[in-house]
């Protein structure tokens, strides 16, 4: 066996919290990386994957410090080096591809200057040669106009392009190790494919080793050779991609994988004949900005129509900018639509929510994506749940408190949690409270805007199960907005595919993969990474289609 390129042993990293306490966030992690190998660090938020990746460059974020263990890269002992020696290594031996290239490019400098900066800092080659090499890399990364793209400023190119440019920036110094820090997480799925392909090709060509940090097993399966599963700053399991995916030994890995298993949804059979749809939307148009001739400057929603029967669930899918969140806001009246009708339970809603009656408002509730911003940090959980009880139902005192406890019980939270503040809860708990607040109104329709997107997969799966259970008990209907097709598949009966503010197709959820007709729906559905190592290499997409629809 060859000597590993990187070897990390018993790495310990500590952090100082706001209140001055020291906590250990990386607890004795050890692993090796062979030359030319791509190793994935997989884990959920707080697992320490990014912290470990950055430590391979000898860098820790403010407040963190390497407390023990060793990191060796080639012949250099990174942990024993001075900051100056580490700076020598950065860019030449080990380089970095950030999560958000848009933020990592300096807005006031041309792209070319930033891409070749490593060669300037370390005096690697003359400028002309560096620029020629950069253009070569641009070509290898399949960037458009490789000869001239370097003369632009970062704000003049798209996010997917910037992400590929940042890979060129990392590869220019011919490093031995490239660290990818969730480089496709912020991208839309149709963009992600192209970026992943470019990374894979460029890495194969350079022969460098890589570390790929991600929370997404399906993405990692396409690009990595080996996977290290992390949780709470400790290695849970380590193995080849195939082994991890097909024969995971650690229960946590199995849990991660099970979240990927397709769970098709079947609505509970309707008990009685349902006379009118719970929601019907006709030719709905909404937008932002100044109104001119009764139309806003920026039109987002264009003639959206659909209807949803009581007790059934509707999924709305689409990429960023498709208008799916705007649709929820327009229905709720937060963004009053300028044309079209919204009928909830057969009753026509006025556009502006201020003009709707309390009873009309009560029937449909909206739940937002980020529980962090959806719960007022200065109100206790009890107060948060109590408010809609008082507001809609006039409950007070003991009766209200009893109902708060009941609601917490419905979302499977202990009653004592009502005395806490949102900041003291975990992400999953907060999202449950967020949902319980909507339930407090005793609604008939709940608009869920990406409610599982910010959660770790395992937690998200549990929330989906909860939603299904509540639907059975409370006779609810959900309108479920998401960019994640598997979540939509798991809970919805029908699906709307949105693209640039329009509904391009309406489908039954259970056979959307098979029966999608519209070219965009097919592109979108085929772009979802599958838990299969051959998925990316065998994926064929019509280039014309990609050109037409992908927002690269």
């Amino acid at each position, binding site marked *: 066996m060859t000597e590993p390129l990187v070897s990390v042993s018993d790495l310990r990293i500590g952090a100082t919290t706001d209140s001055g306490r020291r906590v250990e966030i990386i607890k004795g992690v050890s692993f090796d990386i062979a030359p030319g190998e791509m190793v994935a660090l997989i884990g959920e938020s707080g697992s320490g994957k990014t912290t470990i990746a950055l430590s391979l460059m000898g860098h820790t974020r403010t407040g963190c410090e390497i407390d023990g263990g060793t990191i060796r890269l080639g012949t250099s002992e990174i942990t024993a080096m001075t900051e100056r020696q580490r700076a020598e290594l950065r860019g030449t031996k080990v380089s970095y591809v950030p999560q958000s290239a848009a933020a990592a490019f300096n807005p006031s400098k041309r792209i070319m200057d930033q891409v070749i900066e490593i060669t300037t800092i370390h005096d690697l080659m003359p400028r002309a040669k560096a620029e020629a090499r950069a253009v070569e890399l641009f070509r290898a990364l399949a960037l458009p106009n490789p000869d001239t793209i370097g003369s632009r400023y970062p704000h003049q190119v798209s996010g997917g392009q910037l992400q590929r440019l940042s890979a060129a920036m990392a590869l220019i110094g011919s490093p031995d190790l490239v660290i990818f820090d969730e480089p496709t997480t912020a991208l839309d799925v149709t963009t992600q494919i192209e970026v992943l392909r470019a990374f894979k090709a460029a890495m194969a060509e350079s022969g460098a080793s890589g570390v790929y940090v991600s929370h997404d097993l399906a993405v990692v399966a396409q690009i990595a050779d080996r996977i290290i599963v992390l949780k709470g700053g400790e290695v849970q399991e380590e193995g080849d991609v195939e082994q991890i995916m097909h024969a995971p030994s650690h229960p946590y890995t199995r849990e991660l994988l099970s979240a990927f298993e397709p769970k098709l949804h079947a609505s509970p059979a309707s008990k009685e004949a349902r006379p009118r749809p719970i929601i019907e939307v006709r030719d709905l148009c909404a937008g932002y900005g100044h109104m001119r001739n009764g139309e806003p400057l920026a039109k987002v929603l264009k003639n959206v129509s659909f209807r949803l029967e009581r007790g059934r669930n509707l999924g709305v899918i689409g990429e960023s900018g498709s208008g799916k969140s705007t649709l929820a806001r327009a229905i709720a009246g937060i963004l009053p639509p300028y044309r079209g009708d919204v009928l909830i339970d057969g009753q026509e809603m006025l556009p502006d929510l201020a003009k709707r009656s309390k009873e009309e408002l009560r029937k449909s509730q909206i739940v937002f994506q980020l529980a962090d911003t959806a719960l*007022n940090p200065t*109100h206790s959980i009890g107060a948060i749940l109590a408010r809609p009880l008082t507001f809609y139902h006039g409950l007070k005192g003991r009766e209200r408190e009893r109902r708060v406890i009941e609601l917490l019980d419905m979302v499977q939270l202990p009653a004592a949690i009502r005395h806490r503040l949102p*900041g003291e809860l975990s992400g999953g708990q907060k999202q449950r409270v967020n949902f319980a*607040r909507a339930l407090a109104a005793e609604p008939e329709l709940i608009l869920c805007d990406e409610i599982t997107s910010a959660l770790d997969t395992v937690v998200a799966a549990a929330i989906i199960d909860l939603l299904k259970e509540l639907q059975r008990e409370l006779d609810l209907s959900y309108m479920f907005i998401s960019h994640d097709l598997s979540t939509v598949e798991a809970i919805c009966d029908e699906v709307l595919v949105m693209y640039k503010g329009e509904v391009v197709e309406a489908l039954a959820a259970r056979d959307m993969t098979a029966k999608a007709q519209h070219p965009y729906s097919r592109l979108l559905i085929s772009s979802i990474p599958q838990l299969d190592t051959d998925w990316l290499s065998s994926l064929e997409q019509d280039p014309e289609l990609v050109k037409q629809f992908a927002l690269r």
Partner: protein
Amino acid sequence: MTARTSLLARVPTPARLGYRFNLVGRIGLAVILFWAVIAIVGPIVAPYPPGEIVGWDYFTPMSAEYWFGLDYLGRDVFSRILMGARYTVGISLAAVFITVTAGVLLGMVAAVIGGWFDMVLSRLLDALNGIPSLLFGLVSVAALGSSIPILILTLAAIYIPGAYRYARALAVNVNTMDYVTVARARGETTFYLISREIFPNILGPVLADLGVRFIFIVLVLSGLSFLGLGVQPPNADWGGLVRENIEGMSFGAPAVIFPSIAIATLTISVNMFIDNLPTKIRDRSE
């Protein structure tokens, strides 16, 4: 909504939110409290009547009898400083409370209502912000005179635009938060949104802002008094004490140095306190 049971109402105290005040912050707070107490009891604990001539000499150095010496008329400087605290601290506090109350109320209303109300008010107050503070004071005092109520209102008016702009920016941020949107979608009134959803979330930074504006106000008040346009003789705040005794400057008389030091201890300690507030509360970059 009013009768909140004790179980539901849990105040987010500093300790529960993980705040911690460090040593420098505590020293700052101690000095602030010290001057606050003096402003109340100053005349009682003063060794001599502040307005009376108690010695034959003038501009005397420090002594056991007259701790900070005598002033240009032979009055006890120590007693006059204790009395001056009442004017400096009292006027500034009154002004800063008016400033911040008005600024925060207007700022929150503008942020929530938006539209024309917000635009006109913001333009107008921004323009007033374009008048340098001491200049504002000069013009106002020239026009209206320098009685204490006028001084308080003038000082308050000078800083309302700043307090408004700051509170509005905070409130605009909070207003875009989903919990405010949820409350609005629930059908809550503007009053509820402002008082229950927004105000508690801007309170921390607003208190820090109150401290900063307090310092500004103390400085402008002292400046005005120093120019002879603030508190009028025979009464004197600390700035006025410096002015009275400015003749003693050329030989470093305690009568001119100690009132200056009194101002500095107050303003520096407020600054120390604010700068060492936990970042969660402070969270400002102006």
